[in-house]
C-alpha cells in the first residue's frame, strides 16, 4: 500500500508540476498555488454563472431540479475530453513507463496509481462544475440535511466514471494516433469534429430548451432513460435516496475497477505495442531541400509543431476555428440571426459591432504562444546555439499565432459586413478590434511563458493544457478583453459603433505597447537565461 501511495503521489506531482513552472523555490511554489487557486475560483464563477442562467430557464417549466442532471452530465463530458488527452500523454505515453515497469511492483498497483492521479485531476474539474450547480439549486429550492454530503459523494463517484471513460478514449487516441503528414490531417479533422460537437450542442441546446418548455415530461423521461446515472445522482441528492447513491457509486466504481483491471492485465502489452508501431516511412528526394529565410523557417517550424500535435490544435486552435465557423454560418444563411439583431438594437450598436465583440472574446480564448517556449523543452539548445537574435525567435512565435488567427477573423468580419451591409470604415474597425486582442493575447502568452516556462513537462499535453503560463495568459487576456468590451458597450449608445470599437482599440493598444517593450528588454534577457 505504501508503494501505491508513493507512486500515485509521484504521478500526481507530475500532473500538477506543470502548473508550477518547473520552479523549485518556495516563493514560486506559492505562486503556482496562487495560480491554481485563481483558476479554480474562475472556474467556480463560470460554472455558477452558467448554472444560474440554466436554472432561470428551467424555472419557467418548473424543472429546476434538472440542473442536477444536466450539469453533472456536462461535467463528465468535459472531464472525459480533458482526461482523454491526459491519459494519452500521461498513462499510455508517459516518459516514466519504462522506469515504472522495471520496478518490483505489481502492474495492478501501477495502473491504479496512474488512474488515481488522473482521477484527482478529473475530480477537481467535476467538483468545480457540480458544487456551483448545487449551490444554485439550493438558493432556489429547499434542500434536505444530507443534500451537500450526497452531492459531494455523488460527484466523486461520477468522477470515477469520467476517469474510466477518459482512460478508454485516451487509449483510442494513442492507438490511432497517425504520424507524419497524416497527423496534421487527423488533427485538423479532430478540430472539425470538436467544432461540429460544439455547434451541435449550441443548436441542440436551443431545441432542448424549446422542447423543455413545450413538453417537460418527455424530456425528463428521455434523460431518465439515456442519462440514467445522472438521474440517479439527482434522485440521491434531492430525495436522500441511499439506493440511488449506491447506484451512482456502482456507476463510477464498476467501470473504474474494470478499466484498472484491464489496464493492469495489458499495461505492458499496450505500452509495448504503442512504442513499437512502425514509423511512417516516406521516400524523400533531396530536391525537397529549399532555402528559406531564418524567420520563415522559424514560423514554418511553429506551424509544423502546432498542426502536428493534437492537443495543441484542439486547445489553441479553437479561436480561429470558431471564427471560421461563424463566418461560414453567416455566408451560408445570408442573414444576421434575429436574436443578434435584437441584441444589437438593445446595445445601441450594429450587428457587425456585436459580431466584432464576439470575435474579441473568441480571440481572447487562447494563444499558441502561451505554451510555445515550454514545448521547446530539451530542444531549446537548437535555437539557442543558432545564429539568431532572441527577438527573431520570439517574433516568429507571435507571427505564427497571428497567421493562424487573423485570416479567419478577417473572413468572419467580411462575412458579417457583407450580410449586414456595413460600411468599409465600420468593417475595418470591426476587424481591427479583435485583431488587436489577438496581438495582445499572443504577446501576453509569450511573456507569461517566459516568466513561467515548463521545459521539463512530462508530455506536451501538460504544457499545453494546464501549465501556469497558459492559465495566466488566458485569465489576463480575458480580463483585458472583457474590460475593453464592457467599457465600449457602455459607450456604444452615445458614441455609436465606430466610437465603441475605437475605445476597444485604445484600451487594448496600451498593454500591447507595454508588452512589446517588455519583450524587447526583459523578454530577450530572460530567453537568454533559459536553460
Amino acid at each position, binding site marked *: 500500500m505504501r508503494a501505491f501511495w508513493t507512486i500515485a503521489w509521484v504521478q500526481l506531482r507530475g500532473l500538477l508540476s506543470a502548473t508550477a513552472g518547473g520552479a523549485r523555490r518556495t516563493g514560486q511554489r506559492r505562486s503556482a498555488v496562487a495560480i491554481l487557486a485563481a483558476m479554480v475560483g474562475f472556474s467556480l464563477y463560470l460554472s455558477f454563472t452558467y448554472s444560474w442562467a440554466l436554472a432561470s430557464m428551467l424555472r419557467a417549466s418548473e424543472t429546476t431540479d434538472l440542473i442536477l442532471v444536466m450539469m453533472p452530465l456536462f461535467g463528465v463530458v468535459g472531464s472525459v475530453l480533458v482526461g482523454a488527452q491526459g491519459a494519452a500523454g500521461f498513462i499510455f505515453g508517459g516518459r516514466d513507463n519504462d522506469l515504472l515497469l522495471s520496478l518490483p511492483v505489481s502492474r495492478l498497483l501501477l495502473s491504479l496509481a496512474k488512474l488515481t492521479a488522473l482521477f484527482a485531476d478529473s475530480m477537481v474539474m467535476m467538483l468545480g462544475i457540480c458544487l456551483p450547480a448545487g449551490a444554485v439549486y439550493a438558493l432556489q429550492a429547499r434542500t434536505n440535511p444530507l443534500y451537500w454530503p450526497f452531492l459531494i459523494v455523488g460527484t466523486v463517484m461520477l468522477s470515477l466514471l469520467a476517469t474510466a471513460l477518459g482512460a478508454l478514449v485516451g487509449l483510442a487516441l494513442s492507438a490511432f494516433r497517425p504520424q507524419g503528414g497524416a497527423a496534421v490531417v487527423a488533427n485538423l479533422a479532430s478540430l472539425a469534429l470538436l467544432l461540429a460537437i460544439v455547434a451541435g450542442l449550441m443548436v441542440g441546446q436551443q431545441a432542448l430548451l424549446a422542447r423543455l418548455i413545450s413538453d417537460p415530461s418527455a424530456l425528463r423521461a428521455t434523460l431518465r432513460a439515456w442519462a440514467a446515472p445522472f438521474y440517479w445522482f439527482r434522485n440521491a441528492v434531492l430525495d436522500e435516496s441511499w439506493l440511488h447513491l449506491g447506484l451512482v457509486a456502482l456507476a463510477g466504481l464498476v467501470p473504474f475497477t474494470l478499466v484498472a483491471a484491464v489496464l493492469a492485465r495489458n499495461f505492458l502489452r499496450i505500452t509495448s505495442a504503442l512504442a513499437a508501431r512502425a514509423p511512417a516511412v516516406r521516400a524523400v528526394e533531396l530536391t*525537397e531541400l529549399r532555402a528559406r529565410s*531564418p524567420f520563415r523557417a522559424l514560423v514554418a517550424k511553429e506551424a509544423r509543431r502546432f498542426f502536428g*500535435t493534437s492537443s495543441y490544435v484542439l486547445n489553441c486552435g479553437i479561436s480561429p476555428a470558431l471564427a471560421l465557423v461563424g463566418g461560414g454560418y453567416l455566408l451560408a444563411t445570408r442573414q444576421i440571426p434575429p436574436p443578434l439583431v435584437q441584441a444589437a438594437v438593445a446595445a445601441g450598436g450594429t450587428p457587425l459591432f456585436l459580431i466584432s465583440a464576439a470575435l474579441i472574446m473568441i480571440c481572447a480564448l487562447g494563444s499558441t504562444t502561451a505554451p510555445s517556449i515550454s514545448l521547446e523543452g530539451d530542444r531549446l*539548445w*537548437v535555437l539557442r546555439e543558432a545564429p539568431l537574435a532572441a527577438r527573431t525567435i520570439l517574433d516568429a512565435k507571435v507571427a505564427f499565432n497571428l497567421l493562424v488567427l487573423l485570416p479567419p477573423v478577417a473572413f468572419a468580419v467580411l462575412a458579417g459586413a457583407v450580410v449586414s451591409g456595413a460600411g468599409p470604415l465600420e468593417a475595418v474597425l470591426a476587424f481591427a478590434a479583435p485583431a488587436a486582442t489577438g496581438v495582445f493575447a499572443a504577446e501576453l502568452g509569450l511573456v507569461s511563458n517566459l516568466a513561467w516556462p515548463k521545459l521539463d513537462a512530462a508530455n506536451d499535453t501538460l504544457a499545453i493544457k494546464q501549465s501556469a503560463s497558459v492559465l495566466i495568459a488566458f485569465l489576463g487576456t480575458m480580463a483585458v478583453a472583457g474590460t475593453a468590451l464592457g467599457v465600449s458597450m457602455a459607450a456604444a449608445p452615445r458614441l455609436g459603433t465606430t466610437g465603441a470599437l475605437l475605445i476597444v482599440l485604445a484600451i487594448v493598444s496600451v498593454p500591447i505597447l507595454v508588452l512589446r517593450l517588455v519583450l524587447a528588454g526583459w523578454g530577450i534577457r530572460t530567453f537568454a537565461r533559459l*536553460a
Partner: protein
Amino acid sequence: MLEISHFSHRFGQTLAVNDLSFTVPAGRIVGFIGHNGAGKTTTLRAAAGILPVDEGQIVVAGHDVTSDPLAAKRVSAFLPDNPDLYDFMSGLEYLNFIADLYRVSTERRRELVAHYASAYDILGDLGTSIGAYSHGMKQKLALVSAFVREPRLLMLDEPFVGLDPIAAHTLKGHLRTLCDSGGAVLFSTHILEVAQALCDDVVIIKRGRLVVAGPTATVIGDSSLEAVFLELQADPGAA
C-alpha cells in the same frame, strides 16, 4: 580558433568553472577531459553561446561570444551529449530547418546533405519522423546537421556515445578533414583511448580549474593518457 580566457561560471552558489583559460588553434583536434561535473559541458555550452559568460572572455574565430554572439555562432557548431531534436519533424525537414537558420544555399545544402547523410548511412531514413529514430540515429542526424553548417569550429560533447563503430570511424575521419581544411575541433570525452589516438592536444580540468593543457604527446610522454589522467585526478595539489 577558440580562445577561452579566465572563464568562470556559477550555478547559484556553486562555482562550476573557475578561471579557466586555454586555446583551440586552427587545424587542431583538442580533447577536453575531466571527471563528471568537472565543468566540461558548462564550458562547451558557454562557448556555444547557450550559457552566459559570467566572468572572463570567450572568443570564436575573432568574435567575442558575449559582445558579438551571432557572428561567433555563424562559424561554429555545438552538439550536446544527448541531442534532443524535433520529434515532430522528419530527418530531412530538420536538416532543411538547420540549413535555413545558417543561410546555406539550396544547392549547397543538397550537396552537403547527400554527402554526410550517405556517410552516416541515414539517407534512406530522412523521410521518417525523428520521433521514430533510435538514439544512435538521432546522434547521426545531429552530426549531419552540424556538418551541413560547414563550421570552422566544431564543439562536441561526448560525440562517440551511442554511435556504432562504423559511424564512430567515419566521424573521426570527418573531424580530421575539418581540421585539415583549416577548422578546429573541441570535444569532450571519457574514452581516453580515443582521445589519445585522435587528439592533437588535450585539456584536462578538475573541479572547474585547468590542470594541464598541451600537445597530447607532451602531456602523456612515455605513459598513457589514462595513466596521466588518473594520476592528475588523484593528486590533491592539482587544481
